[in-house]
């Protein structure tokens, strides 16, 4: 259209120029002749088909202005939608990834994790030993593939600087179990574990990029792991990350010792059963194997060991499942509250705008026009809410990755699931949109006259709307109660856990992983000496109060266990089977970690070269030396015969509040087989000061020793609480949000109803009612809604919280204190939310109030 006009004006100008006019005059004259472009445009806009789009654009802009005029409504509505949709989608995405499809592998649901129960010791769900796995491999009639693995850190040299990589050692058919194909090169099979083969390694896609630059030459190149030569034979596809932190996979060497080892239960074992999926058959097969072992290696008798299988998917989700279900339920509630709240807001706003719409109808606006206007408004709202939802959802995922539990879970890089986003977002936005359209549809139902009068009091239309508003508030209150109860229980659980004494004092302790290169320190004595030298230097560093070296730091998930005997003492009846954890420590560990020594003495460097000594813990002493002094007694355990020189207090090693396991400590001054461990430093210094100082101290001994994975002990403790903490944080946030939303909802409704009753209030006050009486009337009304909602909510909570039993600690699902507290809180908030508009109404000048009619 513009172009057409321009052409016309140009031609007019040319005509005048040809007639002799100067150019500028010609143009001006032409424009005048054309008679004002604006008017034309205006008139033509009314005619063209494209106008529909332009008109809608105008509607959208007007909608934006209208919304900006009521910022409170707009912000709250958009924020509510965004929060509801964003949080929902984020959590759904995590649940979907973790529970349903943790790995992009076909047939994942057929893979089972095999674990052992040793009921005589009270050890359940432990891993298997190499000899045991070998037995499973030798049953191809039962299992299509068998594999087992463990993960640890190794020093990698031979490509650039020395670096530490996380390596998974596998036996059996690891890659075939997952049906993997190499992205480059080949993936080794079970045969690679046979002695005599060249050592091969498979790298992760990420490591390939990092070390080999993604070039094909990297495949076939030689690397060194702990000084041993390996050949890189293949690269895994980028989507496969299991175990999550693994960068390198190497085969476990199955020499004679490995074949016979049945005591070191260190391998996570996976099997793919043969034949169609039949959990009963698998259970029977495993039982047969276990019984066979019991007869052959444990002499039969009572309380046989058991093998059982868990679905791999369930296993990897692990501790997180009940928490995730809980969060899922919470999120649904939040979504409901959000939608109810937005609906509330829309309804309230709709009544406020009835007048405006009536005026516009009276002025001749078509119904279609107004519906279009309202559509534009709701569209703006809904789009903003949706966009906010996506943004908040992404933020939530980031937060989950940072503060969520680490480990075998794949919380990193989870995208917002588009299906879920569509579902949650779509349903919420649709609901919000529909509620917003109600005023438009009502417009024709209400005579402009009635609407102009400003009050629909007494009309059936108004009564119906009030009922709708009230029920909406009641529902919101009920949902809020359920959420508040849930989060209240979680908060109490967490404070219970945090209040537990883990057996040591984590404050002020920094943990640093230290790797001892095998090339320079090839045997135990040299490593022993190294550790001693390092500790001497570190302890001499100013600011360091205490330092020690430990393998098997509490709550790090690192441990080892093996059976033992007490020479000369036969097992009594009812005694737990003799199986204990083993940890290697230097001297000074108990002091550094604040673990009390209950009897005897600590290790000393002078123990080196002398008779083997051990320190047992409280649990060990109570279970196997009841009422006696274990100091001085003999023990036949991990390293053979040792003399017990001390008893240490019980420590939570594996997870807070888990049942304690008997533990024995050995000293690195006598045995330093493990090529890495943790350096523990207690200091008042800040990390920024402490870490470089410690690094310098270690460098003084040997520059080539890397210190990595630096964290505080407190951080470790907190992270072990990860899942529960996550639940608490999320629930707390949800609960606070729902409380706020509900309060706003009550406030809004009460404000509206008092406005409607302004005249009535005016009359009452003119007739002598006191302010207090009027306020009380309104507050009672609001309270009535809340009480009903609370009662419903409490009933609902009582019914639902029983499903939380698994994650609670220290509180029952029907904890009266929590319920009472929530009730009081909610009723208090309702009173406040009703009181404010009531007060405002009562302070009105009665004359003004009456005149409003």
């Amino acid at each position, binding site marked *: 259209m513009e*172009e*057409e*006009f321009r*052409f*016309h004006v*140009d*031609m*007019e100008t040319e005509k005048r120029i040809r007639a002799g006019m100067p150019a500028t005059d010609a143009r001006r004259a032409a424009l005048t*002749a*054309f*008679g*004002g472009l604006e*008017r*034309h445009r205006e*008139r*033509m806009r009314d*005619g*063209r*088909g494209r106008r529909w789009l332009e008109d809608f654009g105008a509607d959208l802009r007007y909608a934006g202005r209208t919304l900006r005029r009521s910022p409170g409504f707009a912000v709250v509505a958009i924020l509510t939608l965004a929060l509801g949709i964003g949080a929902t989608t984020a959590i759904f995405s995590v649940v979907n990834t973790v529970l349903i499809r943790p790995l992009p592998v076909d047939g994942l649901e057929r893979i089972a994790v095999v674990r052992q129960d040793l009921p005589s010791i009270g050890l359940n769900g432990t891993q298997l030993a190499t000899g045991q796995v070998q037995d499973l491999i030798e049953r191809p009639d039962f299992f299509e593939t068998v594999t087992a693995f463990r993960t640890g850190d190794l020093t990698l040299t031979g490509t650039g600087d020395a670096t530490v990589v996380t390596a998974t050692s596998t036996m059996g058919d690891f890659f075939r179990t997952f049906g993997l194909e190499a992205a480059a090169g080949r993936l080794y099979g079970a045969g690679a574990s046979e002695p005599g083969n060249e050592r091969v390694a498979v790298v992760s896609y990420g490591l390939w990029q990092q070390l080999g630059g993604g070039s094909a030459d990297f495949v076939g190149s030689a690397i060194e792991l702990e000084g041993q030569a390996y050949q890189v034979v293949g690269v895994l596809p980028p989507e496969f990350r299991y175990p999550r932190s693994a960068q390198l996979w190497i085969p476990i060497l199955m020499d004679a010792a490995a074949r016979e080892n049945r005591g070191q239960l260190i391998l996570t074992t996976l099997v793919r059963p043969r034949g169609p999926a039949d959990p009963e058959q698998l259970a029977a097969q495993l039982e047969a194997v276990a019984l066979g072992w019991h007869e052959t290696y444990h002499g039969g008798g009572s309380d046989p060991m058991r093998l059982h299988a868990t679905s791999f998917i369930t296993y990897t989700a692990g501790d997180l499942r009940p928490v995730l279900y809980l969060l899922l339920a919470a999120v649904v509630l939040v979504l409901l509250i959000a939608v109810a709240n937005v609906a509330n807001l829309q309804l309230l706003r709709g009544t406020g705008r009835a007048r405006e719409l009536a005026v516009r109808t009276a002025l001749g606006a078509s119904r279609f026009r107004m519906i279009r206007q309202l559509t534009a408004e709701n569209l703006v709202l809904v789009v903003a809410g949706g966009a906010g939802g996506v943004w908040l959802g992404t933020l939530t995922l980031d937060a989950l990755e940072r503060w969520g539990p680490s480990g075998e879970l794949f919380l990193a890089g989870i995208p917002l699931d588009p299906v879920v986003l569509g579902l949650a977002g779509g349903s919420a936005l649709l609901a919000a949109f529909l509620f917003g359209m109600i005023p438009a549809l009502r417009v024709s139902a209400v005579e402009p006259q009635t609407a102009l009068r400003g009050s629909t009091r007494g009309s059936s239309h108004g009564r119906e709307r009030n009922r709708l508003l009230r029920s909406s508030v009641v529902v919101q209150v009920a949902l809020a109660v359920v959420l508040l109860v849930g989060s209240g229980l979680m908060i109490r659980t967490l404070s219970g856990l945090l209040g537990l004494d883990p057996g040591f004092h984590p404050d002020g302790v920094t943990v640093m992983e230290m790797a001892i290169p095998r090339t320079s320190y090839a045997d135990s004595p040299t490593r022993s000496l190294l550790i001693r030298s390092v500790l001497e230097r570190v302890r001499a560093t100013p600011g360091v109060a205490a330092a020690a070296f430990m393998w098997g730091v509490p709550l790090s998930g690192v441990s080892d266990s093996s059976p033992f005997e007490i020479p000369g003492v036969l097992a009594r009846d009812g005694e737990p089977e003799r199986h204990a954890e083993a940890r290697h420590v230097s001297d000074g560990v108990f002091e550094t970690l604040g673990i009390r020594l209950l009897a005897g003495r600590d290790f000393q460097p002078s123990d080196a070269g002398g008779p083997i000594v051990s320190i047992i813990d409280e649990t060990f002493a109570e279970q196997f030396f009841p009422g006696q002094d274990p100091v001085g007694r003999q023990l036949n355990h991990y390293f053979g015969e040792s003399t017990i020189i001390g008893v240490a207090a019980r420590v939570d090693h594996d997870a807070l509040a888990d049942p304690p396991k008997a533990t024995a400590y050995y000293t690195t001054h006598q045995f330093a087989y493990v090529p890495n461990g943790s350096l523990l430093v207690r200091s008042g210094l800040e990390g920024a000061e402490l870490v470089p100082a410690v690094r310098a101290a270690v460098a003084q001994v040997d520059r080539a020793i890397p210190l990595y994975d630096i964290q505080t002990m407190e951080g470790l403790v907190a992270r072990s609480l990860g899942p529960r903490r996550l639940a608490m944080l999320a629930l707390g946030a949800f609960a606070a949000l729902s409380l706020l939303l509900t309060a706003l909802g009550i406030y809004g409704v009460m404000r509206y109803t008092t406005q409607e009753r302004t005249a009535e209030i005016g009359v009452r006050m003119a007739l002598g009612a006191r302010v207090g009486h009027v306020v009380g009337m309104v507050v009672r009304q609001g309270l009535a809604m809340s009480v009903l909602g609370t009662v419903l909510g409490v009933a609902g909570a009582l019914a639902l919280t029983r499903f939380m039993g698994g994650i609670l600690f220290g509180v029952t699902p029907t904890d009266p204190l929590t319920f009472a507290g929530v009730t009081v809180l909610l009723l208090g908030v309702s009173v406040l939310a009703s009181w404010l508009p009531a007060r405002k109404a009562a302070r009105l000048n009665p004359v003004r109030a009456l005149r409003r009619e």
Partner: protein
Amino acid sequence: MSPRTTTDALRGSLDLLVLKTLSLECTHGWGISQRIQQLSAGVLEVNQGSLYPALQRLEKDGLIYSRWGTTENNRRARYYELTRGGRRALGQELASWERFSAGLEAVLRTS
């Protein structure tokens, strides 16, 4: 076609002029205004403010249709052309105009 009222009669005369012009040749908006001026020997100067809305209306009613084209000077312009319905309407309008002007003349000539 919209129902005829008195205001429509005046509007209708512009429509008539446009339709007639377009029946002679297919041209652009400016061309129509020049042509009318020329054919009426300068008596009728089309209010350009009403021309384009009229064109739009006629197009919406399906009496003419438009397309983009190039002039001799290689300028882009929107060209209008009569449709079959437009030709029919032109005939009807001419007939009613003749009746109207005949009636008018009859009254005015009466002394």
